[in-house]
């Protein structure tokens, strides 16, 4: 014990520790993280990449532990910046999280052999490590027996058994985390050099006497129990490379990374050295020299019989076999479990696809109609609040700001919550039970046709209801290029907010002709065409992005098919809650701000005195109890007409209206007049706003019902100054095509910003979709005019 130990009774300072949790995908890592942290987590992105940063707190008697939930990975061999984040966090090189004091390595006990590969790499980092055997129940079910005590002895590591989804073994793990960072518990070879990151032993977190019974925590001889796995030839090459780097001034490059630089052919480090990033500063000539050195070194290694990269898998798996020898007993033949039998049906050539289609239909139906049901409550609530505000505040700019800016903005955020909650309920359920991997397996062939993988299917399909949960759902795609492509094309899918526009335009201008013996209706056909347009256009666009912006070999599909398990309601609900919360707090505030800005653009700089006066006179009529309802509406009717006329004039004179006139030359080639221009401008924050804006601009007062007959006849009667009709079939088609392809949804753009951690991507999405929409609308107008 260090002499500086302060007696517990007077100890006030709480020691703070940082612990990283790593593991393969599907090992129950997040479940374990939630169990340790009590569910509360801080989430965000690591700077410059799409990796989610997830931090949690774990309190124990004398210390405060920050838990870092690292993304599930099969290895620590970084091929991209995203994969480098995990390595950097473990090495204490990621500035926005602390240097970890320990690592918790979680392993799927039923698949221990493959999982120990990652453990073998983690041990090379040299931090105090705890091995957690999770899902021991599944392992037992498979007839696999693991002697944890023997494994602990062989690995010289604390080994604990847990069933995270049942919260079993969590308290023991908490104690072990504290113990491993304070006691001289065994630690692997190859310490972290100068000792940075070693916990200060000044204050003992828990007296030894209170340390839990050292079941598998039995301290064994410290450091050195694990020798070097690699052949001598490899070590001398590592040393050579290290001295070369030191000669260039890269003296504090961690040994772990020197080794990775040698092992990872075409890996992230090779390129990072050339990009002057990642704390290394080699100029172009030196970088060439480095690459040449690596080529030669790898050639020498190949000649010496340890070919890179094969040597790594060979030595590590040999080590794994050695560690498991005598520790694991397994049945001679792998027993056929319920999970396997279930898969015979769920991935079957016919029944697999039928069940998948049925499942997707249910998800889609839920997003489309159940959400609509909940959304109507949101809207009713919004209407009620607006009514209360209107009653409490006299007409004026403040009332207008509150009702048309703030309340409309808050409503515009909340209205997406039902879809987000419903989609994530399904996704969390399907992922937690293991079906999502099957969905990717079933749909992969189809999605490879556009250069994506099976994992993009569910996010894109969900985007047909709403791109916001769809974009959020792309988190299941680990590969950055695939994920970015999916995010960028997701807003092209025809979401439910486009329906009112289609309903209005088709209802007004597309004749209800039927053909093929009344089987096909032209209106229905147009609706179908508009709904499919975005998805059809997304195919070449996704292909183009994969060939230009996100060029590169397709990522390996290679993945494990996890065992089915019952989803845990707690995990599922927690996940839904955090998604909803993240949307409201991060994207919600921005959506609100945009709504208020657009309100201001349509409100100023006009003089609203006449409208306030009319509003005052209308509310006086409302309050007259001496009149019958009919008499009241008779009195109000001329005032309402007047108000609609004045509002239309005010909108025309507002900044928004002026902008509409300003862009008229730009929209004329699409067959539009300035009124459509204003409608389109006003609906950039939310496309469904077009119906209401057209209502205002045609002096009809507020309406947002596409079936509104007054609005329909106003559109049908609208004329150019020379008396020609503004709207005809080509114009209706051009408006619909524009709406089908345009990124008129501030919420989606804000969510893209949140998911990519960068303003550039929403700006790009907006730009490319607007350009696409303009071109599409022009083509639709020209082609239709040629036939009209």
């Amino acid at each position: 014990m260090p002499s500086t130990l302060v007696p517990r009774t007077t100890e006030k300072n709480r020691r703070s520790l940082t612990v990283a949790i790593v593991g393969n995908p599907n090992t129950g890592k997040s479940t374990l993280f939630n169990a340790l942290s009590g569910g509360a987590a801080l989430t965000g992105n690591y700077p410059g990449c799409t990796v989610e940063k997830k931090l949690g707190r774990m309190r124990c008697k004398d210390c405060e532990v920050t838990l870092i939930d690292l993304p599930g990975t099969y290895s620590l061999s970084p091929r991209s910046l995203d994969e480098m984040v995990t390595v950097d966090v473990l090495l204490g090189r990621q500035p926005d999280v602390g240097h970890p004091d320990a690592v918790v390595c979680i392993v799927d006990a039923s698949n221990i052999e493959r999982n120990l590969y990652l453990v073998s790499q983690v041990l090379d980092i040299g931090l105090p490590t705890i091995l957690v055997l999770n899902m021991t129940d599944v392992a037992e079910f498979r007839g696999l027996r693991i002697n944890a005590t023997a494994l602990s002895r062989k690995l010289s590591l604390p080994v604990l058994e847990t069933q995270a989804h049942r919260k079993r073994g969590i308290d023991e793990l908490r104690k072990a985390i504290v113990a491993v960072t304070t006691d001289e518990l065994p630690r692997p070879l190859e310490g972290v050099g100068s000792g940075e990151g070693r916990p200060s032993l000044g204050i003992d977190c828990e007296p030894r006497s209170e340390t839990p019974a050292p079941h598998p925590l039995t301290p064994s001889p410290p450091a050195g129990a694990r020798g070097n796995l690699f052949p001598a030839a490899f070590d001398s090459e590592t040393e050579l490379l290290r001295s070369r780097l030191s000669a260039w001034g890269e003296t504090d490059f961690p040994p772990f990374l020197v080794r990775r630089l040698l092992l990872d052919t075409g890996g992230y480090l090779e390129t990072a050295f050339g990009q002057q990033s990642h704390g290394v500063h080699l100029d172009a000539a030196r970088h060439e020299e480095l690459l040449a050195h690596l080529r030669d070194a790898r050639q020498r290694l190949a000649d010496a019989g340890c070919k890179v990269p094969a040597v790594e898998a060979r030595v590590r798996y040999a080590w794994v076999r050695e560690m498991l020898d005598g520790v694991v007993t397994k049945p001679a033949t792998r027993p056929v479990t319920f999970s396997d039998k279930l898969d015979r049906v769920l991935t079957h050539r016919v029944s697999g696809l039928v069940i998948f289609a049925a499942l997707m239909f249910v998800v889609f139906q839920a997003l489309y109609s159940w959400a609509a049901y909940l959304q109507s409550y949101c809207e009713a609530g919004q209407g009620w609040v607006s009514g209360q505000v209107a009653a409490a505040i006299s007409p004026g700019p403040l009332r207008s700001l509150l009702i048309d800016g703030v309340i409309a903005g808050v409503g515009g955020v909340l209205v997406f919550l039902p879809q987000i909650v419903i989609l994530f309920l399904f996704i969390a359920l399907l992922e937690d039970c293991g079906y999502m991997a099957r969905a990717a397996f079933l749909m992969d062939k189809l999605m490879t046709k556009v250069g994506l993988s099976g994992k993009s299917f569910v996010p894109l399909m969900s985007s047909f209801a709403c791109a916001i949960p769809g974009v959020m759902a792309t988190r299941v795609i680990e590969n950055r290029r695939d994920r970015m492509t999916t995010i960028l094309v997701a807003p092209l899918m025809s979401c439910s907010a486009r329906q009112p526009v289609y309903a209005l335009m088709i209802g007004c201008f597309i004749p209800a002709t039927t053909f093929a013996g009344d089987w096909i209706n032209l209106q229905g056909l147009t609706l179908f065409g508009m709904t499919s347009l975005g998805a059809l256009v997304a195919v070449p666009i996704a292909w183009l992005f994969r060939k230009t912006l996100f060029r590169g070999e397709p990522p390996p599909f290679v993945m494990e098919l996890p065992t089915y398990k019952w989803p845990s309601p707690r995990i599922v609900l927690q996940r839904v809650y955090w998604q909803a919360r993240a949307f409201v707090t991060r994207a919600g505030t921005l959506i609100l701000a945009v709504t208020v800005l657009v309100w201001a653009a349509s409100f100023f700089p006009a003089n609203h005195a006449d409208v306030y006066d009319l509003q005052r006179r209308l509310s006086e009529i409302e309050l007259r109890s001496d009149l019958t309802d009919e008499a009241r509406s008779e009195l109000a009717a001329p005032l309402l007409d007047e108000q609609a006329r004045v509002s239309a004039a005010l909108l025309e004179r507002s900044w928004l209206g002026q902008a509409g006139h300003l862009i008229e030359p730009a929209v004329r080639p699409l067959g539009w007049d300035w009124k459509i221009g204003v409608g389109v401008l006003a609906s950039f924050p939310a496309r469904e706003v077009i119906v209401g804006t057209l209502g205002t601009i045609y002096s009809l007062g507020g309406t947002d019902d596409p079936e509104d007959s007054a609005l329909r006849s106003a559109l049908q009667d609208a004329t150019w100054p020379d008396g020609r009709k503004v709207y005809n079939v080509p114009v209706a088609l051009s408006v619909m095509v524009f709406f089908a392809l345009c990124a008129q949804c501030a919420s989606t753009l804000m969510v893209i910003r949140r998911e990519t951690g960068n303003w550039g991507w929403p700006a790009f999405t907006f730009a490319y979709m607007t350009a696409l929409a303009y071109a599409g609308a022009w083509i639709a107008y020209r082609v239709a005019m040629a036939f009209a």
Partner: protein
Amino acid sequence: MSSTLDTLPVGGRGRVVEIMGDDAVAVRLMEMGLTEGEDIAFLGAAPLGDPLEFEVRGYRLLLRASEARRVQIQTAD
């Protein structure tokens, strides 16, 4: 007999000889436990014919046919 992993019949078994190449796919295949001398069995293909499902080191592994083609195997007959 020597062939590649994508040519195994359903239920067929083989032994890994070598992974061809040193790119991301090859490295991932090795990391997933396809090392020299390992036994591997083909369990079946997805309904649309790709990807393929294998059993190796006691777990079920999914690979695309294009990825399985990179794995040289030795079959019993």
